[in-house]
């Protein structure tokens, strides 16, 4: 399903793991392309390979076969420095369990990617404050994750993912640890941020409601393959 304006393209992605003595096929030839600025959901049962796919796109893992192209360029999978730069500047990651560093304040957590970029303290703080304001946490900059609610923690994580203004946002079950009301708020925030910053968003979820309500396109995975790839039933528009 190639599109002319594809931002990211996955070609025949395969990822096999050796579990004990047997090979497990987590992904078994997955291909798709995501249009720039689109919001897509990947759904499927647990073990269908959605998280593996997300890790590959995030540059955290390497495919056994196949390749990933960003704006037509293959990912330099063998080079740590370039892959780190890719994770730092071109993708933002959001996790089910937030993955904030418990000892750091909300602000310091948001500043972390900028720290690795070698940015000065003043600019780091300014950008972190700006993002925390956008996610509605300007009052909580000095709080540690343990002092924040689940929804607030996920907002901090969204601010961290966006602080380097990446062109792509990858979210792995972003609402998995949240109640339904907060889930809706977080998804609304993601949608809003996408509108403001024009990012390509890919959300892995097992919640069909979320997928169809907030995304334009839903890709269903099963046993490491694409089972279906269709426009969302909820009819969310770009």
């Amino acid at each position, binding site marked *: 399903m190639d599109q002319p304006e594809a931002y990211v393209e996955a070609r025949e992605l395969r990822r096999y793991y050796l579990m004990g003595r047997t090979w497990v096929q987590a992904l078994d030839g997955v291909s798709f392309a995501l249009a720039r600025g689109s919001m897509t959901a990947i759904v499927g049962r647990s073990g269908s390979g959605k998280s593996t796919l997300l890790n590959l796109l995030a540059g955290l893992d390497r495919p056994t076969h196949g390749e990933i192209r960003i704006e037509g360029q293959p990912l330099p999978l063998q080079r740590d420095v370039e892959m780190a730069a890719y994770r730092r500047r071109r993708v933002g990651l959001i996790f089910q369990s937030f993955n904030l560093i418990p000892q750091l304040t909300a602000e310091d957590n948001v500043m*972390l990617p900028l*720290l*690795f970029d*070698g940015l000065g*303290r003043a600019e780091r703080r300014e950008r972190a404050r700006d993002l925390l304001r956008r996610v509605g946490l300007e009052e909580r900059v000095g709080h540690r994750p343990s002092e924040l609610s689940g929804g607030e923690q996920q907002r901090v994580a969204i601010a961290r993912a966006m602080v380097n203004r990446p062109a792509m946002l990858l979210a792995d079950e972003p609402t998995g640890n949240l109640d339904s009301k907060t889930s809706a708020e977080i998804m609304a925030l993601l949608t809003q941020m996408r509108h403001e910053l024009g990012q390509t968003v890919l959300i892995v979820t097992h919640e069909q409601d979320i997928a169809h309500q907030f995304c334009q396109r839903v890709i269903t995975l099963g046993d490491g393959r694409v089972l279906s790839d269709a426009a969302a039933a909820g009819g969310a528009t770009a």
Partner: protein
Amino acid sequence: MKFSDLSELALANLWRQKLRTLLTVVGVAVGVAALVLMVSLGIGIKRAILKQMDSTNLLTEVAVLPIKFDLAALFRPRAKVDAPTAPKKITQETIEALRGIEGIRAVYPNFNLFVHFKIDETQSAGELYGLPPEAITEALQEALICGRMFADATREALVSGDMMKDMGFADPALVIGKKVVLTAAGQRGRRPRKLTLKEGEEPFEFEIVGVFDAGKYKSLAPRIYTSLAQGVRTRAASFDKETLAENPGTLGEFPALTIRVTDFSYLGKVKTEVEKLGYGTMTIQDLIEMVENVFLVVEALLGCVGGVGLLVSFFGIANTMLMSILERTREIGIMKAVGGTRRNIASIFLVEASAIGLMGGGLGIFGGWVLGQLGNAIATWYAHERGMTRDVAAFDVSLWLGGGAIVFSVVVSVAAGLYPAWRAARLDPVVALRHE
């Protein structure tokens, strides 16, 4: 990643685990303190020995020995040592021959005798030296507590104040005018022989004309100085019949000579000339070089002993860092996920390790210095208890040693952090993020 940010992050991480950091730092400090103590002990003892030799009049002195042998070369690393030559006798003729050499101010026999003596009715023992006027140095003159120098060729003597104190004469002024009566005398290493007077010979009695401060003159052994003529006479009387029968020449031989050169610049030339005659020489420079070469080995050995402590610290740091990585696995995954490179991650842990080394090193040097000072104070107290007037500086912590210890401590810490840092850098982010 900026170094300032890196350091700040590393310190914050160490602060998070205050107790563990403290224990590791103390471990390093103990190692560094042991190293500093050991090395400073070597340096201090060497200093003390060299200080004993540090006397300007010694700089113009050459000892003439019957055997030509480069003693200093024995301790010089990788030096070829020539076998000692057969001994060449030092006699009155030798003295005459040497007097002809340019740059020599005085030549006189260098010997001392072990003597038994009494002052009033108090018995004691000590060393007797016979000195010509040229051998009476400024240092000896300055060490005079009371009285005056003995006159040449007379039966006058100078005694050590400490020796007088040991014999019960607390006030040195009171011994002036008393007589030292020699009862027996002997060569070094031989039993003193009872002195008997020949027909018409002057008695072996010396009038004390002065008392010198042994500590100030840097000669702690109990000593009596008298004129060269009286020394030679006493020496002649100290040979027993057996020795003389075995070796009739002994009487006219001396174990060694001392040469005083007119100026320091003649030292090398005189040395060469004397060696041409077939005699061995020894100068204070030779001795200093020997001491320095010996202490090169001593310091290295002491350093190795002290280094064991730092080796233990090495494993302590490695253990702490590995524990820390285990605990922070998820955090490492997060840092990688948000774009930290392997290098960034490794740097964080290496900076943490070096910070431990720096803190431990600083604390260790301070601790070593304090213990060294304490040791010096105790040694000084002990020396004073025993009647010595000097302060003892057995531990010598120099700026150079302190700086070296810090650098060494940091190097050891970084080395200990290398493997843990490598482990952290190599963590698979997917696995690390799943880690609970």
